[in-house]
């Protein structure tokens, strides 16, 4: 997400950081880079112009001159302006006061409406709502069928009286759907409409008719994050043609820089409510403008990560674990338990991608083998309880037995044990307050912080063969991918 834009800005600020004070020329050079980075990130030209103008004005003003650290100031200004354009605070979905809440989805062909409908339904269902999906895309071949499959996967009812494929009236279907929902007491109605072009007057007027027929509480404009400069035209066309209340950004798991987010927010003034980040039904999350902005600045999306972790993680358990780590009682058994909790959080890759500095390790992330986790689990499961608690007892013959039992090799067992020991040592350092910054960011979950470092150190060891005996130092050597201890933060002097 926004990875490349982050990379660009980090590059720009690298030069800035080394200077004690900013001159007007410095600011202009920086702004040129920002302009270019934003354009290459597909932010619409008119939005870029406004954005850069606003930053220049603020950067040249008194604010900066008073600052102790100019780079810090510019980052802050850019960040604030980004948040500003992205819509300020996060907005929640609006629900109807009485009767079913109606959500209408609209957008171009191929923006991901049908997939999103399923995700949204699943998400609402998880929140205790009873959603029903309405198949009002009667245009695209087998769109109705697709929605039915999606609904089945999400475990949600689908209202599909027409087969579609060019036949049937979507306005009538939508109208009936509301009656159906009222009668059957569904709490949310999600209307999936056909993809349409902003300039297709006939279809836009049909969309207006659907809107009139269902009187939606939300009209969500679904837009592909890969879209280029046309985002502005499309967003305007849908805002003028149908009238939208919010935006959903899809395919954010790709490597598109996603400048469309800025363009759309800026021209419509409507908030981005959700971000869709993959093909699985769970790959969906609320959109947080402030977090997204800090992500653009390569600060990582640590808050999202925490939230996800909290959903799956028991706070009490986490505290217990932290205590264990501090007392050096962290065993492979605990480790196995943690691993199972982590697996509940979803794909490890997605999780890692949210870490600060992840932009710089994107490629490595993509090559991360999820199966590795299963193998590790297999190895631990092949150990006896004693071995899990005291890895020290693992002699050659025990290791061979474990390797055989888990279908791995002795080398893999060795490497796991080694890495575990190092990580445990590292965690101890962390728990003792080795990473105050991280601790502050993740209240109640110091073990997460430790995990990051474990990864960092491991990387360090694997890739660079660091010789430092001090784990904290090793982690520090790897600042490029662990901004926790001064990575992204201090790289901007923050």
């Amino acid at each position, binding site marked *: 997400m926004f990875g490349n834009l982050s990379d660009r800005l980090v590059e720009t600020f690298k030069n800035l950081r080394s200077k004690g004070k900013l001159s007007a020329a410095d600011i202009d050079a920086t702004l040129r880079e920002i302009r270019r980075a934003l354009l290459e990130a597909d932010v619409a030209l008119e939005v870029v112009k406004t954005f850069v103008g606003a930053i220049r004005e603020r950067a040249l003003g008194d604010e900066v001159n008073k600052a102790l650290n100019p780079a810090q100031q510019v980052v802050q200004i850019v960040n604030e302006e980004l948040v500003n354009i992205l819509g300020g605070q996060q907005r929640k979905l609006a629900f109807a006061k009485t009767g079913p809440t109606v959500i209408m989805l609209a957008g*171009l062909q191929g923006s991901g409406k049908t997939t999103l409908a399923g995700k949204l339904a699943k998400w609402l269902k998880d929140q205790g709502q009873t959603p029903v999906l309405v198949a009002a895309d009667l245009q695209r071949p087998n769109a109705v069928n697709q929605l039915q499959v999606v609904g089945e996967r999400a475990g949600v009812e689908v209202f599909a009286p027409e087969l579609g494929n060019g036949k049937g009236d979507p306005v009538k279907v939508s109208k009936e759907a509301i009656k159906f929902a009222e009668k059957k007491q569904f709490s949310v109605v999600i209307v999936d409409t056909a993809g349409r072009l902003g300039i297709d007057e006939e279809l836009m007027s049909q969309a207006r008719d659907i809107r009139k027929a269902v009187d939606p509480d939300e009209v969500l404009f679904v837009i592909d994050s890969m879209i280029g400069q046309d985002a502005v035209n499309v967003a305007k066309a849908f805002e003028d043609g149908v009238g939208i209340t919010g935006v959903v950004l899809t395919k954010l798991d790709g490597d598109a820089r996603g400048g469309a987010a800025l363009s759309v927010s800026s021209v419509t003034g409507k908030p981005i409510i959700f971000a869709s980040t993959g093909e699985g039904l769970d790959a969906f999350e609320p959109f947080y403008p402030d977090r997204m902005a800090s992500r653009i600045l390569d600060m990582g999306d640590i808050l999202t990560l925490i939230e996800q972790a909290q959903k799956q993680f028991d706070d009490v358990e986490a505290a217990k674990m932290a205590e264990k780590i501090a007392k050096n009682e962290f065993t492979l058994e605990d480790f196995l338990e943690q691993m199972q909790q982590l697996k509940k959080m979803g794909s490890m890759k997605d999780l890692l991608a949210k870490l600060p500095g992840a932009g710089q390790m994107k490629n490595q992330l993509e090559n991360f083998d999820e199966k590795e986790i299963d193998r590790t689990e297999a190895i631990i499961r092949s150990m006896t309880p004693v071995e899990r608690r005291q890895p020290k007892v693992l002699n050659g013959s025990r290791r061979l037995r474990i390797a055989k039992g888990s279908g791995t090799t002795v080398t893999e067992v060795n490497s796991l044990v080694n890495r575990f020991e190092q990580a445990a040592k590292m965690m101890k350092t962390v728990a003792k307050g080795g990473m105050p910054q991280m601790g502050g960011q993740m209240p109640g979950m110091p073990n997460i912080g430790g995990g990051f470092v474990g990864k960092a150190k491991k990387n360090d060891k694997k890739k660079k063969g660091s010789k430092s005996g001090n784990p904290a130092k090793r982690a520090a050597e790897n600042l490029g991918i662990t901004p926790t201890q001064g990575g992204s933060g201090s790289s901007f002097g923050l």
Partner: protein
Amino acid sequence: MGFLFWKKKDKPEEIVAPEIEVPAEKKKLFSKPKPKVEPQPVVETIVEPEIEVLPEPEKVEVVLPKRTFAKGIKSLFTRVKFDPENLDELEDVLIQADFGVDAAEQIVAEVKARAKKTGAETETELKAILAELITENLTRDDRELNLSSGQLPYVVLVVGVNGVGKTTTIGKLAKYLSEAGSKVVIAAADTFRAAAVEQIATWADRSGATLVRPKTEGQDPASVAFEGTEVAIATQADVLIIDTAGRLQNKVDLMNELDKIRRVVEKNCVIAEVLLVIDATTGQNGMVQAKAFAEVAKVTGVALTKLDGTAKGGIVYSIQRDLGIPVKLVGVGEGIADFAFFEASEFARGLVS
């Protein structure tokens, strides 16, 4: 917490699943010998015609009637006036058409240079220079679909990210080829997305093409593609079009799957075309897409879709200039006939009109 201490896979190639074994006796079912697999089928040389391979010699070359796509291109200058006095504005116009900053700067510099040389001043003259420049940069000899090597069936592999219009493009292409008198087989190798097979089935039905379906839900796409080659060979089809699932280019596993499809298909056939479908609304990420797909899938051409909207599709300029991949097809609507072959001069004229 130790969850991060798994090592990353250093060699993603190793994740590739083993290839499907084809029972030897199954291969023997075909009367036709297996076409020779060339290491780089993209640059096909005219292979000496092996008489028994060709069912009907007169059908070997698929003759493609001409089509225009003028309706698809919107002028660059609808919102911003073309100002001969201030050519820097042109850069903005090109950026807004998704040409990208680099290409826009380069084009403007070139237009300025040529204008200086020829003394062009008026709007018409300058627009002509711009059109000429774009045409020159986009003109290619290998613009046409590579359907003339003589090695039947001509396999067209269609790839791209999610939601760009792969299935629709295949439907249109199949219809077009069928009308041109070719026997078309479509392999529904998008076994991932919900109801994708049904969607392509509808298009196959409309176009009169034979459809090879996956036997089970979520079947390995490579095996469906392979079955496609078997059916195409057994039924002596002229063209085999393989639909693949949309995949974002940064998903290594999915890209490896594409590589596997290629390799499996090449056991039986030579791949004549690998079409990368790009949505005209795509911004600069289109370049990243093209690079990634070209590397893995050996893309031979681009199909630019959804040109009937407000998007100009300027990214194809950079794709062709920097990667040397020509635009071959253009999609201009949801109808089965809304499809044409790309023509550089037409594109350029449309942009400056």
